[in-house]
């Protein structure tokens, strides 16, 4: 019911907006700000489709109220550079594509936090980004390729 002015950066650009208390971050991004690359899947923080970065780390935007990102830097799939996307294409890191935005945002967060991530760390950070086409091997190869190309 209460309204809140929030300010944050989205992919580097300043956002200054007012939201109702119950507005979820995923809905703010998709419906108010038009960033539809972020998907809403399970809506309970399990599937990883709605993964965004907040101050560089991965979060489920379906589990956050928009008020919780006040003062932070938010990055969505629209704000990634093309290196990872190219690696996903070259390694067959997707099939149907529904999980791809979340996979990319999570992988980008990993390579920011750990540029020399081991294959085990790649697998650990992939956990929780579900791919029902069973494309995990291709996704892991793509992340490793992007890591090695940096």
């Amino acid at each position: 019911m209460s309204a809140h002015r929030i300010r944050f950066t989205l992919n580097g650009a300043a956002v200054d907006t007012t939201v109702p208390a119950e507005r979820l971050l995923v809905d703010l991004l998709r419906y108010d700000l038009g960033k539809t690359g972020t998907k809403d899947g399970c809506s309970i923080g399990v599937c990883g489709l709605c993964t965004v970065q907040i101050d560089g780390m991965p979060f489920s935007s379906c589990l956050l109220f928009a008020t919780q990102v006040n003062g932070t830097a938010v990055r969505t799939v629209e704000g990634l550079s093309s290196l990872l996307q190219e690696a996903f294409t070259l390694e067959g890191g997707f099939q149907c594509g529904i999980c791809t935005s979340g996979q990319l945002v999570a992988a980008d967060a990993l390579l920011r936090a750990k540029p020399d991530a081991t294959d085990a760390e790649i697998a650990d950070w992939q956990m929780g980004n579900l791919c029902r086409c069973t494309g995990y091997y291709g996704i892991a190869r793509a992340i490793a390729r992007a890591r090695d190309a940096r």
Partner: protein
Amino acid sequence: MRPFDYLEPETLDEALVRLADDPDDAVVMAGGTSLVILMKQDLIRPARVIGLRRIGELRAIGTPEGNLSLGALATHGALARSQPVRAHAAALASTFAAVATVRIREQATLGGNLAHADPAQDPPVTLLALDGVAVARSRFGERRIPLDALFADLFETSLEPGEILLRVELPPLPAGARATYQKFLPRTLDDYATVSVAAVVATDASGVCTHARIALGGAGPVPLRAREAERSLVGHRLEDAAIRGAAALAAAATDPIADLRGSAAYKRAMAGVWTERALREVA
């Protein structure tokens, strides 16, 4: 999602006053991972949500007076990476790292975890075995609650209306103490434990057990201490018969809830198996 009013106090005192204004219809939010789901599913319908995110002092992790103090707003990720946590017990850091996925660990907090009182959660088990004490404050003062008195029932704590959980304190371990956390995960690595066991032991120079703590998760409506099993070890060498005897006592202490992870009988049997494995790890 039903509409509600959101407050974001800048100080703990202000948060306590706001909560006292409306103890029945207000809820406190730390990370929000559990609260948001409860609200989405309409299981709780708060008129007001009091967000704690601006109260930075509640994030602190350190050893101010000898005890390791873990702030209620410290995230699982921060606790898993914390040098003071690792120095206290590597098993404690790995317990926080065993929760869910990296996304959840960055958002979910220690205080939220404990206040949610999910009996299958990981951190309460290891914190129980480390003799953790919760510290809560209301407008009327501060209260220390040993963790086994904090968990009252399934998803219920003994926190009073108007109280906010501030931190968990862990006393220094006996010299040479060894600790482990064993999580039985037959499905996927990001699942809740079917059962889990934390064990902490210390032995004297001749190998006789002087200190034993065994705690179990997923083994009842609350995280449990297996006190009889603990007592059976003290004064004995941690050899095969003692370990198997303690594991049987630990299994007998459980009161598991049947769910998709197994029947009550299966979980009780697994509690024995994993207690034995935990004790062999630290023996």
